[in-house]
Every structure is written in structure tokens, then in C-alpha cells.
């Protein structure tokens, strides 16, 4: 883990074998660090009480509970990568959860898949509103989504009134989705993992995904280069909205009830999960894998604290410490890499071509941009 190999691999093509390169990337990645913390947490908690992992509901809850936050964190990652943020996901989630219940009550004959799609479509529509306002209004996403957070939450509560949708209002088959599992893995977790894999593949490989990173690294440069910045930012918000919509449906299936508190405050958890997972808040770097691991970590901490004998009232404090720790760690790593890049430029091993000037920009810290 010395600084020299990273310097050489950045200034000229690596002569290491592909396997070795992949291995080294993984070993150096932020995702692995979060994963190690997660595994340690699970191990320690299980050592304290074996039912945490091996109990009949332990294994299921471990996988099932984070599925909603994973969906939100994946969408949030796509938005944050473009140097924006989406604070309205919690309200969107509440709206679609209520829509799900409402559709089952008002249209009893509707197939489940149609209801799920309706939830996703509604989330996407709300994402379109955010996207249009942010991309074409030239207004920071923080302000716009703060506004739409109020608006969507107000719309949800006005629509729902004092209504509360109960388990009996939703068909048995739909609620079973919340408890069923395939090969020991809960269905809802599989849904979240499939979404994670699709979005992760898209961001890593597809042209559109790479452009999101380019836009987040330097929006002006991306525009000058000819990327359709507005359309891509719009896409990120629609994705985030659609996934928040899906999360709303998932929450209805998981809990069997919809109350007025669905999704309140979860937007900051989603941003927190992404930040813990190494997604830089100023765009251009990070992966959905990291964000998903961050989401798993947040939810698992919540469940393991009482087992470890710590009152779960402390959970939020631990989460806060984790977020602060993660961004401090990020800064340390960035500084180290910057020094390595400068060293490679000043007195590189073969005085190779200087490192491109991107090294000074906000996004350069990430392996994503340089890779």
C-alpha cells in the first residue's frame, strides 16, 4: 500500500496482469473498508448473541431491513455523482407507499405488477419535476429538492389525511413479497440487489453512466466538451425518483401498513449512506456498491446496538460519527494521493509524461475519474 505503485500506475499503463490490477483496486478501495467494518460488526454482534445471524429471523432481517435504504442510496449516488443532491426522496417514498395502498383499496382487481409499476412511474414523475427545475432552472439542487420535499410531503399528507392503510387492505400475495424468500434470500433484498447490479453496471460501463461522472467532476468542462449535461442530470433525478418510488412500494410490502411517517427523515440517511460509502458530496466520484454497503452498515448498526448492550438511542450518534469519520478519511486519502501524483510528476521513475492537469480539480481524488 505504499504510494509508489499508485503513482506509476497513474502516469503510465500498468504492466501488472489484469487479475493483479483488479485485486489491487479492490484491496485499495473504499468499498472494501466499509465491507470489512460491516463484517466485523456482524461478527462481533453474532459472537454476543448467535441469533443475530443464525436465528430464524436474524438472517432474514439482516438482509431485508436495508433493502429500502439500499434503493434510495443507489438513486442518491447517481444524483450526488453529478454534483447535485436529492432531499425529496423521503417524501416521494411516502407518496408512493400511500399510492400503493390506495390502488389496492380502490382497484382491487389490479395485478400486483401493475401497482408496482405505478409506484415506480409516480416516483419517476416526481423525479422529472426535480430534474427539470434543477437542470433548466440553473438553481442548486439543495434548494429545489428542499422545496419539493415540503411540497411532496404536504401533498402526501393532504392526500392521506388521517387515513392509515392497514395490512388487511392489501392483498395477501403482495404482503407475502415482504416476507418470502428464495434460497434463503428475501425477495425484496433480491429486488434491491438486482437494481444495485443494473445501476452499478450502467454507471461503471455505459457511456451515459461515465458521462455522469464527467459532469460531476467539472460541469462546465463537460458542457464545453459537448455532453448533454441537462439531459444527464435530468436522468439522474428521474432514476432517483423512480427508485424512491420503488422503495415506497417495498416499504408497503415489508411493513404491511402505510402511515403518515413513511420516509420522513430518510433522505438524510440516504445521503449519509452514500457519504459513508465513499461518494464525494462534490460529485465526480464514488460507486453504488459503496453506497449500498453504507446503507447496510447504517441499518445493521441500528439493529446490533441493542444486542451489544448499548441503548439504541445512541444509534444516531454512531451514524453521525461514522459520517464524519468517513469524510475525514476521504480527505486524508485525497491528500495522500495528491502528494503521490505531484511526486510522480516532479520526479517520476522514468520522467514520463506529466500527470494530466485534472489532478488539481475536485474530482481527481477518486480512482473513478483517473481510471
Amino acid at each position, binding site marked *: 500500500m505504499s504510494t509508489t505503485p499508485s503513482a506509476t500506475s497513474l502516469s503510465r499503463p500498468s504492466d501488472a496482469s489484469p487479475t493483479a490490477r483488479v485485486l489491487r483496486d479492490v484491496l485499495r478501495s473504499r468499498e472494501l473498508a466499509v465491507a470489512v467494518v460491516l463484517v466485523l460488526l456482524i461478527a462481533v454482534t453474532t459472537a454476543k448473541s448467535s441469533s443475530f445471524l443464525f436465528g430464524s429471523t436474524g438472517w432474514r432481517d439482516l438482509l431485508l431491513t436495508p433493502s429500502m435504504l439500499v434503493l434510495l442510496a443507489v438513486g442518491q449516488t447517481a444524483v450526488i455523482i453529478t454534483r447535485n443532491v436529492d432531499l425529496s426522496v423521503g417524501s416521494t417514498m411516502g407518496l408512493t407507499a400511500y399510492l400503493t395502498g390506495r390502488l389496492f383499496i380502490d382497484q382491487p382487481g389490479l395485478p400486483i405488477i401493475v401497482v408496482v409499476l405505478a409506484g415506480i412511474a409516480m416516483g419517476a414523475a416526481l423525479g422529472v419535476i426535480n430534474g427539470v427545475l434543477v437542470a433548466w432552472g440553473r438553481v442548486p439542487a439543495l434548494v429545489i429538492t428542499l422545496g419539493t420535499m415540503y411540497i411532496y*410531503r404536504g401533498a402526501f399528507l393532504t392526500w392521506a389525511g388521517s387515513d392509515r392503510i392497514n395490512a388487511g387492505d392489501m392483498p395477501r400475495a403482495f404482503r407475502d413479497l415482504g416476507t418470502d424468500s428464495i434460497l434463503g434470500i428475501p425477495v425484496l433484498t433480491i429486488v434491491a440487489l438486482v437494481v444495485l447490479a443494473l445501476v452499478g453496471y450502467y454507471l461503471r460501463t455505459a457511456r451515459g453512466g461515465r458521462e455522469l461522472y464527467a459532469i460531476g467532476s467539472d460541469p462546465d468542462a463537460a458542457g464545453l466538451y459537448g455532453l448533454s449535461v441537462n439531459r444527464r442530470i435530468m436522468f439522474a433525478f428521474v432514476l432517483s425518483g423512480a427508485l424512491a418510488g420503488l422503495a415506497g412500494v417495498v416499504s408497503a410490502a415489508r411493513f404491511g401498513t402505510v402511515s403518515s411517517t413513511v420516509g420522513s427523515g430518510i433522505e438524510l440517511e440516504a445521503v449519509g449512506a452514500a457519504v459513508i460509502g465513499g461518494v464525494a458530496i462534490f460529485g465526480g466520484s464514488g460507486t453504488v456498491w459503496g453506497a449500498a454497503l453504507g446503507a447496510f452498515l447504517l441499518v445493521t448498526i441500528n439493529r446490533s446496538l441493542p444486542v451489544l448492550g448499548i*441503548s439504541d438511542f445512541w444509534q444516531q450518534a454512531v451514524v453521525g460519527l461514522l*459520517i464524519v469519520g468517513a469524510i475525514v478519511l476521504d480527505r486524508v486519502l485525497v491528500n495522500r494521493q495528491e502528494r503521490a501524483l505531484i511526486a510522480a510528476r516532479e520526479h517520476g521513475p522514468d520522467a514520463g509524461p506529466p500527470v494530466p492537469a485534472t489532478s488539481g480539480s475536485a474530482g481527481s481524488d477518486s480512482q473513478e475519474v483517473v481510471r
Partner: protein
Amino acid sequence: MSTLTQTPDSGAREQRSYPSYSRPFWQRVVLSREFAVIALLIAAIVYSRSEVDYFDGPQTMYYLFRDSASILLLALPMTAIIITGEIDLSVASTVGLTSVAFGMLHADAGLSIGLAALVAVLIGAVCGAFNGFLVAYVGLPSIAVTIGTLALYRGIAAGLLGTESRTDFPESWTDLAKERIVEDQPYPMILIPFLVLAIAFGLLLHFSSFGRGIYEIGLNDEAARFTGVDVARTKAVLFVLAGAVAGFVGIYTTLVTGVARAENSVGLELQVIAAVLLGGVSIFGGRGALPGVIAGVLLIGVIQRAMLLNGETVNIINIVIGSLLVLSVMSTSLLALAHRAVAASKGARSSGRTSDSAGKRSLS
């Protein structure tokens, strides 16, 4: 003397080089965001007084001020922080933490109430100093740092007190928090510390070199550094002030509700930020003024109160406030678009083209 030496000729030259200052002073005032917010506030008050039942009543203004007091107070340091281009999402959590600390120091540790209040304000300042250290000296993005401390401070408050609460405060103090300055007048006591702080922050922001530095940092922090502004120290001081004010609000909230608990003021940070932005402060930094912000807070307060009196639910009110926030920030970019169109048409006229076609061109 100095006015005499300014020949009309030099004035004209300046007008050409600084187009934004080409308007007379009164026009600049009338066209400013602050003026628009204040005008909107007056319109809302006039409308509510004539159209909304009971808005005219003796209690309305009292509750309006009392309910807006926390936001009014927190908005003062938040304005300065946002003008530097940073943000503090943790203020409401600091309110919760200092409320819990205040209650526990008084009820559990047996500190005299005055000393407990003093320590609570200090705890708030320490919370702010932690934010300020990470943002200003470590150089971390304030939005990420304060999302972390938002959870951290609230989490410590919840960890300390759980769902319990502390309620036994001396009546002389809780009464003081609810009292009016003058009997039968709708001005609660909290307005006195608010006015003192507002004047202090106003002087700091608009009439001191420290304040000029705040604007410079927001416009371009690197340039500010070169002109001798201590960027890190300025930001750190502002975060400490925000924490200390949050500590004071924690005590006020505790006394006025009579309850110290961890959930005090949950979500208030977003209301504070919404009010500050509504008041004309640019989220990009470098722009905004306290009179506009105070009008922004009161505007939200008036709308809330008038709609409540009209029998609307809190949900509808949230929709209205959210829309107002979105519209107000969109208006800036729409105005900018219009300005560009006007500027383009003027430029086109001087270079011989018709203004009409150029205006269309720049809009497309």
C-alpha cells in the same frame, strides 16, 4: 468637496464600465430581492388583516413572534454562513442537544438554572466549533460535515435522555420566556434578545471589515485570501456563533415549552434554511442581507398563521411554503435570463442590429 470633484463626465464613464450600478440608488433598492420580500411581507400582512378572521386579534402577533423566534434567531448566523458559501445543517440538532443538556444540568446535576443556561450556551458553541474546525481548518465540505453532526448531536441528545424529558424548571424562568415586553402589547420577551442579536449581526455583516470579508469569501474565497481575509478563521467564528445561538435557542425552546427533550426542534434546520433563501440570500454565497432574511422568516410566519386561522391544515401550508421557496429561487434565474436578454438586445442595438431579433436569439 468630494462630490464637487466628481464631474458628470467621470460619472458617465463609470456607468459604462459597471452596468449593474448604472441605475440610480432608489431604482436599485426597489429592484432588489430584499425589497421584493419586504413588499411581499407587507402585502401579506395587509391582506391577512383585512381578509382573514381573527388575524387582527391581540393574540395573533404575539404567537406569530413567539413561534418565529427560534427561526428568527437561528437565521442570523445562518445568513452569514450561507453568504460565505457554506451551510450548517446541524443547528436544530444543536438546539436539541443543548435543550437536553440544560434540562439535565439543572434537574440531574443540580446546577443553578443560570449556570445551567450558561453551560448550555457553551456546549452549543463547542458543537459549532467542532463543525467550524472540520469545515474551516480541515477543509471538508460543510454540507457533508453538518449532515454528519446533524445525526451526531441529535444522537448524543437521544442517547443521554432517550424518550425521557425534564420538566421542572423554575416558574420565574418559564414565565419570563412567555411574557410580553409591555403588558397588552403583542411583543413577547424573546424579541429583546433577538433585536440585540439582530443589531449585532447586522453591524457585523454590513458595517464591519469582518463582514466585508464574509461577502468576499462567498464571491471568491481565493481572492479573499489574497486581499488579506483570514478565510478559515472567519468561517470558524461563524460556525461557533451559530452553535452559541443554537444553544440559546435550546434554552428558549426548553423554557417556552417547559420540556427538555431530545426531539426538540427536529427538522427546524430546513425551515431556517428555507427562510434564509426566501429572504434573498444566494446559496452560491456572496449575496444577501439581513433585512431581507428577517422579512423572509416573518413572511413564512404570517402565511402560516393566516392559513391556520383560515382553517387550512399544516400539509397545505407546507405545500405553499415549498412552492414559495422554489418560485423565489427560480425567479432569480428567470430574472437573470431576462437581464441577459435585455443586455443582449442593448448590445445588439449599439452594434447596429435590431434589438428584437437579438433578444429572441439570446433567449433561444
